[in-house]
């Protein structure tokens, strides 16, 4: 998770209030993954079931069509592959260096 900053105790936001909306985005939870969702876009109907059922908001869309998976954050749970009505998502083993 996020490394602490170097700021003095005098300079941290009072009361622990977080003033950085959505800042967890910088936590790259993709590193948790052991399996990777691969989408067959030829078969995809853009029904958006994967989008609505993703616990990590990883399905990126534009104007109502599915564009990509955010692999920086995808934890590889595989709900998308299980729930896809046309089975166009396959979970494949993650290969890391």
């Amino acid at each position, binding site marked *: 998770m*996020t490394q602490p900053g170097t700021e003095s*105790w005098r300079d941290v936001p009072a*009361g622990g209030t*977080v003033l950085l909306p959505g800042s967890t985005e910088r936590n790259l939870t993709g590193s948790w993954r052991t399996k990777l969702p691969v989408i067959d876009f030829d078969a995809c109907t853009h029904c958006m079931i994967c989008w609505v059922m993703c616990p990590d908001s990883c399905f990126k869309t534009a104007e109502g069509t599915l564009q990509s998976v955010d692999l920086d954050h995808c934890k590889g749970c595989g709900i998308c592959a299980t729930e896809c009505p046309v089975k166009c998502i396959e979970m494949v083993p993650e290969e890391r260096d």
Partner: protein
Amino acid sequence: MVDTQERPASGDMAAPATSTAIAVNGGEAVAYALRQIEPEVVAAYPITPQTLIIEKFAEYCADGLVRTEYINVESEHAALSACVGASAAGARAITATAGPGLALMFEMLGVASGMRLPIVMHLCTRALSAPLNILGDHSDAMAMRETGWVMLSGSSPQEAYDLALVAQTIAEHPDVMLPCANLVDGFMVTHAVERVDVLPDDVVREFVGEYEPETSLLAEGSTATYGALDFRDYYFEHRRQQEAALYRSQPVVEEALKRFGEISGRSHKIIEPYMMDDAEVVLVLMGSAEGQVHAAVDAARDAGLKAGALRIRLLRPFPTEAVAEALSGARVIGVLDRAIGFGSVDNPLLSDVKSALWDQSARPLTKGFVYGLGGRVVTLGQFNQAFDELRTVLETGETPGDPTYLGLREDGEVPA
């Protein structure tokens, strides 16, 4: 020994002509202040001896005299929880409680201070269970000392009213932003009907102003997250910052009391000395026993003892330097505790006072007294006894380690 010091008349400044004198008990005096402050939210749960405050305030709400949302919560924990939510939402939020109610709130006391929310609580001091006891002592207030609140203590319905107003400006001061408690002695102040000089509504409203936080849950475009998990990487920094804010509140308290003196003619200080200029033997106390202690000082002086008294008005942050300075000429100091600090080196107030004196080059002798637990009747005779014992300490130069329990039935003795 000759008593060389003039005895002051009560009240050292004339009240402004605009004040109105009313006869109310301490609870109603606080409620009157609440009406004038007109906070956005009051959340409270009935408990003796605090109910006088919320019943009176409920009448103000029912009669449309305030635009406050009065939340009749289902417990004291919920009372302070609702205040936390309301305060984070940008509202001025006030609660009131006593003894066991404070104990039930305990978790939220630290939440309110840790989240830096300027909630004000009127604590009608009461004994803690068990055994069950609804009457006054300081067990609850003393158990609250290390929860991060600014704590003010009065001795009369007038002071309950005055400090209710002052507390508001201290808590919300940008240098402080901490909750503040106004300690109102249960029954001895809450239920004592006295003359209270109240300020005009417009004067009070100008004095307390409005609460204008930098951020809030309800502010337009707000995205603040309040109350996040704070782990080993930041918790320490936040606690240090909170501690600094509490110590920083002392000059804010002094300034607020001064400013209040200018509008009211009542110049309260963080400590209240009585006959201290040449005092060699001093009783230190907090709260409503002041009148009897002063009478005992007078009696001791009549008997040739250079006696004095010092009342602590600011319990937290403890005014260490002011107390040490005020006691610097004393040779024997007795400290009156209306609570027991079970298993501690000393009872709570004695412990604070002794710590404040530790760095003095010539440390005086000290002696502890416990009095008035669970509403045990407090008498002049008890404080006369205290001065008698302190005189012995002065003469012998020896102080017994154990405290004296004033008004306690001992084997075969009838208490003073």
